[in-house]
């Protein structure tokens, strides 16, 4: 029996083609399990043949993180889909990992509910979002993916199926593996089913927008908004890259940044708060029912150098200034969530590698001086070897120990994660 036959005994599988490449790594096989049991059998077969396994959800972010040092088998979750259970009265749902986030929201919306996670990239699966620890604007009020997970089913590298948490929102029985697995990039196990808590879709929402000229102005306005206690659900700032213009810390006239506040709640309350926000922000502030077109997306495209900077709340303006300075003539585009202390930046993929290194170093140095960090989410192939994707990571020794316990043979997405894990 060939290896492929053995894999096929577990679930549908085929030989890989060049389109299945992960970063530059050419896999040998692709498999499509439809259940936890099939994932388990597949991973046991893969273990028997010592195959290295990389999970693929929607494939929207497979070039993110470190390129795997080996990826013999792509475990595609495209058929591991469906909402297993939606208990609307309990505000929870159990969902298979390969289900596209958009599909999840569609099902929940029928009951007036949602999973408070933004779909930053169309086509993303719930498993992919949880595995990368993703979140968008709503993170300000609702936190990131790990905060929504109340239980999960995971299949370990050796094929053993494990559960943690459950279907109730309050639960402290045993270790919270949900948090450990969220953001683990598929290096500790394959998520097959995820139980999440839900929230009602709010009766009303308002987007209050105001042009801003400098990061310092954003900070000052944020402080004023805070004093008014308007309880925004999200606060985002877009700093667009001007077409070909030389950018410095001072804004180019005619290209203002845009600050947008999202308010949600009962209709009367939202209307009152939106009016108050317009008054507090002054300038050309106005309220809208719809978000700007960049809302809930990334500033970068698939070929860009993609950065994520995290600082304590209220400290983002430093990294914004220093990144713009380091970028000089390069058109760097930045989206920030100042109230959550997170920003994403896009540097055009054709940037000179030396300049790329300079920009990353500038962002990292300032972020770290505030106690934060800077991660390179994705980098063009010619830049990647020049930079440290993750930067220094606290607790790396314990992380290695955890990886070793879960996947002693290093078979799941080797090399993808921090410190070469």
């Amino acid at each position, binding site marked *: 029996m060939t290896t492929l036959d053995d894999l096929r005994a577990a679930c549908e599988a085929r030989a890989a083609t060049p389109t299945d490449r992960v970063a530059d790594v050419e896999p040998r096989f692709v498999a499509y399990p439809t259940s936890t049991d099939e994932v388990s059998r597949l991973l046991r077969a893969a*273990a028997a043949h010592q195959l290295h396994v990389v999970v693929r959800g929607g494939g929207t972010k497979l070039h993110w993180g470190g390129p795997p040092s080996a990826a013999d088998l792509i475990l595609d979750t495209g058929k591991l889909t469906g909402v297993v259970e939606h208990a609307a009265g309990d505000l*929870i749902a159990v969902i298979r990992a390969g289900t596209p986030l958009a599909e999840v929201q569609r099902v929940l919306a029928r009951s007036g509910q949602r999973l408070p996670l933004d779909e930053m990239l169309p086509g993303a699966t719930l498993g992919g979002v949880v595995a990368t620890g993703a979140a968008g604007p709503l993170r300000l009020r609702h936190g990131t993916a790990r905060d929504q997970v109340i239980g999960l089913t995971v299949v370990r590298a050796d094929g053993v199926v494990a559960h943690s948490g459950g279907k109730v929102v*309050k639960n*402290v029985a045993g270790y919270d593996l949900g948090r450990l697995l969220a953001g683990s990039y598929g290096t500790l196990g394959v998520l097959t089913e995820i139980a999440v808590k839900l929230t009602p879709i709010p009766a009303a929402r308002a987007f209050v927008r105001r042009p801003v000229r400098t990061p310092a102005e954003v900070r000052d306005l944020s402080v004023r908004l805070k004093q008014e206690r308007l309880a925004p659900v999200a606060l985002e700032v877009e700093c667009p890259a001007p077409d070909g213009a030389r950018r410095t810390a001072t804004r180019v006239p005619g290209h203002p940044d845009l600050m947008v506040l999202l308010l949600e709640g009962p209709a009367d309350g939202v209307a009152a708060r939106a009016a108050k926000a317009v008054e507090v922000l002054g300038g050309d502030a106005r309220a809208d029912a719809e978000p700007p077109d960049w809302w809930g997306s990334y500033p970068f495209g698939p070929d860009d150098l993609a950065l994520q900077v995290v600082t304590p709340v209220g400290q983002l303006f430093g990294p914004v200034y220093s990144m713009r300075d380091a970028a000089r003539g390069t058109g760097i585009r930045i989206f920030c969530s100042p109230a959550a202390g997170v920003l994403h930046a896009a540097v055009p993929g054709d940037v000179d590698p030396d300049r790329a290194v300079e920009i990353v170093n500038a962002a990292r140095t300032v972020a770290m001086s505030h106690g934060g960090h800077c991660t390179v989410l994705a980098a063009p192939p010619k830049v990647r070897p020049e930079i440290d994707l993750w930067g220094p990571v606290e607790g790396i020794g314990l992380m290695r120990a955890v990886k070793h316990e879960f996947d002693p*043979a290093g078979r799941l997405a080797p090399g993808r994660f921090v410190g070469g894990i």
Partner: protein
Amino acid sequence: MEVPARLAAVAERLVASLGPHSVLTDPAELRTYECDGLARYAVSPGLVVLPETTEQVVETVRACRDADLPFVARGSGTGLSGGALPRSDGVLIVTSRMRRILEVDLDAECAIVEPGVINLAISREVSPAHYHYAPDPSSQQICSIGGNVAENSGGAHCLKYGFTAHHVTGLEIVTPDGDVVWLGGGKCRQSTGYDLLGVFIGSEGTLGIATKVVVRLVQTQQCVETVLAAFEDMASAGEAVSAIIAAGITPAAIEMMDALSIEAAEQAVDCRYPDGAGAVLIVELDGPADDVAAELAAVTARCEQSGAFELRRAADEYERGEIWKGRKSAFAAVGRISPDYIVQDGVIPRTALPEVLADIAALSERTGIRVANVFHAGDGNLHPLVLYDESVPGQGDAAEEVSGAILDLCIGHGGSITGEHGVGVDKAKHLPKMFTADDLDTMQLVRCAFDPAQRCNPGKVFPTPRLCGEVPRRGAAPHPAQAAGLAEAF
């Protein structure tokens, strides 16, 4: 060397490095630490150490490591699952002298505190600036933040604001090996790498000792409304809860009490809840004023439709205090109507409330053991108080049985054996009813990564500790010989 000799050696070493006032060896003094809030289990610790700094914790943990003795961390000792139950062959490390608030950073909306800081002390410190620390366990006047981290504690307001895990963004820990490591993002809300902070929180002192805690501070809301609604029976109160949730409202808190717990509270604190109430709900709403006004109208209407015969809205802080008084005193109050009682802590999906409450009533009827129900109705976290009299032969055992049967009901409905008090030593035997051997084995992989020698709070949480280095029971990773092609795969 025998254990007593090793303990003596550790005591000597720590007296030399920490000073005599930080090391307790007198048996009478040791006995004051023999149990936590769960007095059913008591063990006199081999030695008690009261460190004042991270360095002293490191020194203590290293002394334990070198002498191969287990150790247990203890905060305020209010735990209700025996998590801080000492070991007679080990060292109890008490954080009560590590009580400094090291930094308050309002720009970054966080504070850095030592583990022995009392939960409420943080809110007291920052309330002049209109901030507070959100998780508010009923024990918040005495429990420590380190204990909260270990238990992932929640409170009445976690329906809207979440638990400790949502409010702690960084931890300095001393590992079981005596290393100092920071977990999480520190003052940042996101971090890089595995979420070790997330697993440490709620690990009940089995992965290390937290020595600094970065907590998020939350702005105090513009407006708070508190309503007491009285119903004839539990079913109609339960219906009101469902109606409120279905209306898309997330109150800051929804608490429910049954007739027996109301009776106990009346006797204890004279809270004057409406006469004839078979159940009361306390609903608290908070947020911007106009939002709260709209929600209050909706909540009032839902309660009336579900049969509330009296609604009281607190007009000011004093009246709010009066409404909460009965609820907050309920545990202690029950002590007045029963010589002994067990505080159970189980969780069910909220929609199963009517069925489970009926089952508990039937159980009580059948066994003659009274059960008072006080709970966080919004998230289905029950706190049945199982009443008994130790002096009546057999009643203690009967109460234990009823208490266990209630957990079985919770599990049967897809719930959990603990919502906030933890597994500790008390519920370790119930954990396998909720999780398979593989589930527990997988959880313990984390333990093996942090504490391969199993020195940190051994015997808690997991019924049978997995020996690190031991091959997992089922589906074992291939043996090295097999991986090298020297043996068959299957």
